[in-house]
């Protein structure tokens, strides 16, 4: 089975991924304020309810937190949390699709390992 949902994920997940990506790449630093729900929904032209849903996922996971009347901030330890979570998803997201494609192209296990090795050495 080959499910290709990556390109058309629900918008709220795309938004939470975008915020996470920017935390990982140190655009939004820990304890730094991030854009408001309104700013995010206007910027991405998405319904504010959708934006709120994406944000609340990160609040629930303790990646960002809300300060009443002030705004939203990146939690301390957010980078660590996101890395841990993404590592778990790494296998599903990358390894499985890599193996699927390799199977179609008749690429052997040894060849894949060699390619990965070459990639690391570059």
């Amino acid at each position, binding site marked *: *089975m080959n499910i290709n949902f990556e390109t058309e994920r629900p918008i709220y997940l795309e938004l939470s991924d975008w915020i996470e990506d920017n935390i990982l790449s140190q655009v939004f630093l820990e304890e730094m304020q991030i854009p408001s729900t309104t700013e995010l929904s206007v910027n991405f032209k998405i319904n504010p*309810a959708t934006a709120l849903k994406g944000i609340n996922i990160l609040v629930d996971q303790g990646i960002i937190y809300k300060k009443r009347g002030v705004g939203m901030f990146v939690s301390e330890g957010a980078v660590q949390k996101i890395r841990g979570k993404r590592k778990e998803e790494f296998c599903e997201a990358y390894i499985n699709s890599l193996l699927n494609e390799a199977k179609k192209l008749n690429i052997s296990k040894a060849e894949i390992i060699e390619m990965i090795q070459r990639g690391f050495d570059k």
Partner: protein
Amino acid sequence: MSTIQVKNITMQFKEVIALNDVTITFDENKIYGLLGRNGAGKSTLLNLMTNKIFPTSGEILVDGENVLENDNALGKIFCMCDKDLYPKEYSVKKAIKWSKEFYPDFDTEYAYKLCEKFQLSPKKKLKGLSTGYNSIFKIILALAANTPIVLFDEPVLGLDANHRDMFYKELINNYSENPRTIIISTHLIEEVSDVIEDVVIIKDGKKIVQDSVENILSRGYSISGSAQKIDEFIKDKEVIGVDTLGAFKTAHIMGSIDKSGIPDDLEVTKLDLQKLFIQLTNA
């Protein structure tokens, strides 16, 4: 904060039944997309809501009050539609001044701010506006009207890409700051699919879908592969459409996906709102 209830509305023009026993509830403070093909009955519905025409049967209630000849109920609705509200000789400035007379909560200052933003000179006469600027002028009035319900009938008609972008951003900003009930009737589904929260689809004068965009998209999917395998797979499924390309076939299906039941060599993709709309409203 206002709701609109469309109750068993039928609208007949001579032999043509434009709307046939339509019932829809529009909840307060949501952005709705009203979708349908040409002639489906979208504009008729908006015209009924604003009492521009009278239904053959049924009623439309705003916060429980019938809109028929009811200034109180009608004062809660601003409709940006294709009909021009003001005489062509009026200047933009004069039209803004009159809007304040008709809609007491009209935000004149905001209207002028928007004129500046969209580079529309208030001195201009309405008859001198291009198609695009005529739309912009109406958009400005609708955004500044400050009514609890705002209806947009093809709001981006004639607008270039930059102005469309500005419109959607301003709409979201306006809605975030002052939540209200907004109904956008449009053909440009792709453009509004992220902006709207709920969708109502009308086909041949009947409501065929009312749901949140998220729900409706999670209910459908497309599956493609060899025609033979697809035919086998879709036997017991609710198929809303099929595209064939030689021996390659794509079927569009309503229903949740049973991941374990999908053969290895078939590919599953998500339906987007536009694809779903096309499948649902094809003749």
